[in-house]
């Protein structure tokens, strides 16, 4: 990236753009809060603001590509607290992914709320205010994407937990409140007791927390220290839903579908993986980790085995679920396990593979959730048993569901195949290669089991459901199809992404 000197005017407008990118979701949220719930201006305003935000992120990418990194120091308190943002490749691509899917979710939730309010299913109280919290969550995620140091990232990470918590128990039912409490407890306790002390220790050892290429901890730690620290970070960031701190994700499925789709398939869980990627790339340093694990491979193997266990455990659990959203939740956990597995190889190729897998999974999973929400609000179906032969009532939506499900299984030429292949190829230099390959093959088989079973169910299983025509709002349908088409085109971007993201 060339570092052309910018004159003063352009520099300050770049800073402003970065600030605007982080503030734009906040503005959208406040707009959602103060505008009346049923006006069309509100609905279109939210979509317009999210589109504006997306354009802004693309502009930032353009400037980053041509002019190099730029940063914005928001606040500096004393010597110790520094809250600042900067641009770099992984953050930019992550922000683009989140912004695109935020636009998609806003369009989807237009139709979702219209359908719900028209009385087809039980109305959720308070649901109309959820746009505010959703926008705040996006703001926190963009904050994580563009953080310049570990403290900023930690603050945005905790903010994300706090702001998504009201979304989980928004329906106010007893079940929702219990689920919300579990969500909050698991996420905050892990980050308070594992992640925060790890950050503290890193600050003590390295003297700073800024993300620097090559890492700031190189050669400053003894081996046991390094792996304990690494363990604290990986398990402390419970948003990656790694076993045993994965239980918050199925619990959070009690939230309404747009929330589950955007947050628990995209924003929250992907933030977890993104945080780990950034810490391994810019705090620990990939070369340093590789060097130490080539001498003491025992601890690296533990991480790999934990990820493998998570993948298999979640895949098996998925098969036994009876509710659609729970099945999707466990499927998310196992796919996140894949991303974490690729990271635990401690190679640049592994990290790129993990990130690409993350992006592809986000698009596929959000379509799956969109479809689940469609059949829930339209026909009141939330159990897998009731989905027999519903494909004839929702032809295009179920076709898209099938396509995205097969992508997650890893069937070529769909996107998921390429990302799994990337992960597999990045594992080449690994000592316990056979465990990894077995896990990947086995989990592909298991994923195929529950998804293909589902697809068979919706197409071929005869049912006694009455043939009432179900309302399918156009917005929901179009956005599902549009996102699926985007997913189909994603494999074309692999070369560009690999080139862009390789350090």
């Amino acid at each position: 990236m060339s570092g052309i000197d910018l004159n003063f005017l352009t520099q300050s407008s770049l800073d402003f753009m970065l600030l605007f990118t982080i503030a734009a979701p906040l503005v959208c949220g406040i707009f959602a809060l103060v505008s009346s719930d049923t006006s069309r201006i509100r609905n279109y305003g939210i979509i317009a603001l999210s589109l504006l935000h997306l354009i802004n992120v693309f502009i930032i990418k353009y400037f980053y590509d041509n002019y190099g990194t730029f940063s914005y120091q928001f606040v500096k308190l004393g010597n110790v607290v520094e809250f600042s943002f900067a641009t770099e490749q992984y953050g930019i691509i992550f922000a683009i992914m989140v912004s695109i899917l935020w636009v998609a979710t806003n369009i989807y939730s237009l139709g979702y709320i219209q359908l719900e309010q028209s009385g087809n299913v039980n109305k959720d109280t308070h649901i109309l205010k959820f746009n505010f919290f959703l926008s705040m969550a996006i703001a926190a995620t963009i904050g994580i994407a563009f953080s310049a140091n570990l403290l900023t990232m930690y603050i945005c990470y905790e903010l994300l937990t706090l702001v998504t918590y009201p979304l989980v128990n928004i329906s106010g039912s007893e079940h929702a409140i219990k689920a919300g409490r579990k969500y909050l407890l698991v996420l905050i306790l892990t980050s308070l007791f594992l992640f925060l002390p790890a950050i503290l220790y890193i600050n003590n050892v390295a003297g700073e927390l800024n993300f620097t290429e090559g890492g700031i901890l190189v050669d400053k730690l003894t081996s046991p220290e390094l792996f304990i620290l690494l363990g604290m970070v990986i398990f402390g960031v419970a948003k990656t839903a790694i076993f045993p701190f994965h239980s918050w994700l199925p619990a959070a499925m009690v939230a309404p579908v747009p929330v589950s789709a955007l947050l628990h398939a995209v924003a929250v869980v992907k933030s977890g993986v993104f945080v780990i990627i950034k810490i391994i790339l810019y705090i620990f340093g990939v070369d340093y980790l590789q060097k130490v694990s080539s001498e003491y491979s025992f601890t690296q193997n533990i991480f790999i085995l934990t990820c493998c266990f998570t993948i298999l455990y979640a895949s098996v659990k998925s098969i036994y679920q009876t509710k659609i959203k729970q099945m999707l939740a466990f499927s998310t956990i196992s796919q996140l396990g894949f991303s974490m597995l690729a990271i635990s190889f401690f190679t640049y190729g592994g990290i790129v593979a993990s990130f690409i897998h993350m992006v592809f999974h986000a698009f596929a999973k959000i379509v799956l959730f969109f479809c689940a929400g469609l059949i829930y609000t339209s026909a009141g179906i939330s159990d897998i048993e009731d989905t027999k032969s519903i494909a004839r009532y929702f032809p295009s939506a179920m076709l898209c569901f099938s396509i995205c499900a097969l992508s997650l299984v890893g069937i070529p030429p769909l996107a998921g195949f390429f990302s799994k292949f990337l992960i597999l190829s990045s594992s080449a230099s690994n000592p316990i290669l056979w465990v990894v390959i077995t896990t990947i093959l086995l989990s592909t088989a298991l994923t195929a089991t529950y998804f293909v079973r589902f697809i068979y169910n919706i197409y071929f299983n005869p049912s006694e459901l009455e043939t009432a025509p179900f309302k399918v709002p156009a917005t929901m349908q179009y956005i599902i199809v549009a996102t699926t088409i985007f997913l189909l085109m994603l494999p074309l971007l692999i070369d560009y992404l690999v080139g862009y993201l390789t350090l």
Partner: protein
Amino acid sequence: MNLLVENIIPSQVILLLFVAALLPLFSKRGWLISFITVYLCAFVSCLMIFVVKKYGYVNYVFGKFSVPYGIEFRFDPLSSAFVALVTIGALPIMIYSLLGTKLEIEKKKRPLFYSLLLMHIAGNLGVIIAHDLFTIYVFIEIASITAYGLVAAGKSKQATFNAYNYLIVGTIGASFYLLGIGIIYALTGTLNMADVAKVLTTLPPTNLLGISYICVLLGILLKIGIFPFHGWVPGVLYSAPSTVSALFSVASSNVMIYLVIRLFFDVFNTDITSFATIQKLLMIMAFITVMAGGILALIEREFRKMLGYSSLMNYSLVIFAIAVASKAAIIAAFVMLFAHAIAKSGLFMSAGLMSLRRPSLIIEEMPGTFAKAPWTTTAFVINIIALSGIPPFINFLGKWQLLVASIKQDKALIIVAITSTLFGLLYGLKIIDKVLFKPEPASGLVANSSQALMELGIIITGLMILAMTIFGGFFFAQAEMIANFLLRTLPR
């Protein structure tokens, strides 16, 4: 410096006492007069911050007796910060108290109540500004006696009993303090703090001197509620009127902490050994109180009593950080102190709002207030999250500063800080989902228009926490100035 500035120094205390004495004559306008008085005092304290920035310190000697003999009022960076805390923190409470006192105090006692309130603030301000050991004692007694009266004004039957409890413990504390300064006076022959500090450096460190230090500090710590003398804290805060509990969290214990800081850094740091001994003593007592306060807060079922234990925990954390006495730890202590005072006062006011139709506020039965009072509930949630020390609010930033400071110094501090955050989180969580998500609207909220003023007071505290977080840089810079000021005499 010119005459106006010099004469403004004692003006707050004198104004408050004067107005308090005359207030029973104006029974109709009691609230308005008190509010204007407190507002003027807040204005003066802001003025004094600028004056202190310019001149370093300013002092005023009563009756023009020269300094070691006369009574001196002094504003320096430490005292001006605390005066600002008490007066500015009292403003939202005064706004709240219009309706708060209407609902909790009988009409004919209201002017007396306001009168006591103003005298209590006067006493607190006097402790902060006076630079003379015995004058401080006098003002401690003014503050305490009015405090006992304020607590006894509560509606419930236990108010008098709790006030009596408070009186016993408080008087014992004040007596220890008096005993201690009596010994110091006997040994040094002077009562002015700067003078005492000078003379103490020439005295050999005898046992008697050590005992006097311990008597003084113990007396002050008794009035904060250090373990095992903490029993009066929950009862007092529970049965006092909500205005009073809120004012206590802004003023009384914070002022006692000020006294500990002042004595620890400016008077008792005569030599390294005695400094280190007092340091260890404070750290141990604070550590035990943090643990005790946290555990007791977790098992407590009533909201205001739980807030009392949580206050205890926070005060002890601050004392622990002060005792560590490194620059970063002192900055953290100040940020945490100020942030906690504002958040806690907001919570007590919210508790007052919620408990209007029910005598005790059991946490499991707390009303879901979001439907009827969304902005107030948001402020309430901000205060709770801030209190627990969860990012991004200013309390977390203070705790982070503390953690970073402690890792270089005292590992015990890390345990204390993280455990206190855990406790805060757990008892905060119990409350948040109750008020936000109970679907039925609350039956305990008074639904008339003047309730807006109560809510305004609470919302102002939420906004203050937000402002302190956003302008955190300013805060940290002020705290750094105070830390520099305190550490100017230390060899480290």
